[in-house]
């Protein structure tokens, strides 16, 4: 009987690993860099509380620049060959517009209520990915010869670190057209890019996912975050991989913890992201002796904001 129970337990363990054995896969998307958008006239200017601010206009860029579409398509194809398909910027933008339109006309059947959308919802509903592949190229001309300088940077959206890169300048050519030079640049550089990206993933599997924890407070909260931060640090020390994290900022009302290394799986073998991981901290703070009501807000796989004081 005992032997049968042991075998059953072993089978359950294997089943759990088989079901949850995969880490959460980050999403990747190619986006033209601000410098490229600025140089090619794809920027929108707006008055941000008296300051003239420029932001890239991706929709205009993908609608008008066929070279950009070619490079994105080529990169998407090469990454798909490596079993890592990318999110397509153009499709994401179209989908966002469609969703916005649909949500605006949706109404409840019972009382005609419209879909709830907070200002925060409106801000976060933008084209995003866990790793942004920021793309820049410039055409160099020396007399009749042209060459391409190409720069592809993989940027982690939550830690703001460059996790992969490929740069280079191709051979000058008298006759080759720009799309051909661009295709060659992508093909020549993809190997370097995937190699450095692989190194980043290897580091993640070895040392855990690197995430960011931000703690904010509602105006009406009368606690002392400066004091509480020591207890939060103790919790992080016990729960992160090898106690790895950095306390970047702490004030009475704000704290920022960066380079927090969280495990990829919990003790049951289930894949973890920042949201699942910091849920335990949120629960700890909301239960006695702290009893601090708090709100846990998530940004993708790697950033969490805890707002103390109320939901």
């Amino acid at each position, binding site marked *: 009987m005992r032997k049968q129970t042991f075998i059953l337990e072993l089978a359950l363990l294997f089943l759990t690993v088989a079901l949850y054995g*995969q*880490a*959460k*896969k*980050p999403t990747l998307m190619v986006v033209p860099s601000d410098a490229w958008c600025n140089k090619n006239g794809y920027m929108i200017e707006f008055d941000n509380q008296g300051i003239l601010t420029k932001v890239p206009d991706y929709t205009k860029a993908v609608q008008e620049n066929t070279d950009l579409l070619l490079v994105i398509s080529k990169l998407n194809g090469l990454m798909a*060959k*490596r*079993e*890592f398909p990318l999110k397509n910027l153009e499709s994401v933008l179209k989908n966002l517009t469609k969703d916005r339109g649909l949500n605006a006309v949706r109404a409840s059947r019972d009382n005609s209520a419209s879909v709830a959308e907070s200002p925060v919802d409106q801000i976060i509903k933008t084209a995003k990915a866990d790793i942004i592949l920021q793309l820049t190229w410039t055409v160099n001309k020396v007399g009749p010869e042209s060459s391409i300088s190409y720069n592809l940077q993989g940027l982690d959206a939550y830690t703001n670190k460059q996790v992969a890169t490929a740069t*280079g*300048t*191709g*051979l000058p050519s008298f006759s080759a057209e720009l799309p051909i030079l661009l295709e060659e640049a992508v*093909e*020549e550089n993809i*190997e*370097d890019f*995937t*190699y450095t*990206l*692989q190194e980043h*993933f*290897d580091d993640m*599997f070895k040392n855990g996912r690197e995430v960011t924890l931000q703690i904010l407070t509602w105006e009406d909260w009368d606690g002392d975050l400066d004091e509480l931060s020591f207890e939060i640090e103790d919790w992080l020390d016990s729960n992160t991989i090898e106690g790895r994290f950095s306390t970047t900022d702490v004030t009475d009302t704000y704290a920022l913890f960066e380079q927090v290394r969280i495990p990829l799986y919990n003790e049951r073998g289930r894949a973890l992201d920042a949201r699942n991981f910091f849920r335990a901290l949120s629960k700890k703070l909301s239960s006695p002796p702290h009893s601090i009501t708090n709100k846990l807000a998530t940004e993708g796989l790697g950033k969490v904001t805890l707002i103390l004081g109320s939901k």
Partner: protein
Amino acid sequence: MTTNFTKQTILCCTLLLCITTTAQKKQRLADKDTYEWVYDIECYGGTAKNGYKIVKVWSYSKEKSVATTQAKKNAIHGIIFKGYAGEGRICRASRPLMNREMTEEEYKNFFKHFFLDNGDYNRFVTNATDYKGVADVQKLVRNKKGKKEKFYQYKIGIVVSVASDDLRKYLEKEDIINSLAKGF
């Protein structure tokens, strides 16, 4: 008469056996060189089409033909384990496909099967040139003090084309190297 015929047959057989054994020994030595990374690999222009690499491999042997056949094995070994330096913008450097630590035992097993004379490595490599044509042949000599220079072995440079994308996919499938999506 019969005794003479038997003697001749035995002589022939012995001679044939000697030739075969010598050839096998030379091939084994060449394989040992590959196993111990005794070869050189360099970039050969940037003209390979997408998914392929054209490399020049320098192999060492006392026998020209052995060095020629060994070039293919060396090229594949080089693409997997060594990579090569580029030449500025003319020819880009290539990193080795191997992206994890391999134990000695794993390396030995992989080498034993993959690099058999009719092994799977053959699927990913073709000679870009014939050694009788444009291959570089250098005679290496040993020069002992006060003695005449003595032929040591050939250093033969052969240009081969490697289907590097297909090779990478094969190695990923066989779990020899890690794929980008492994673990997700």
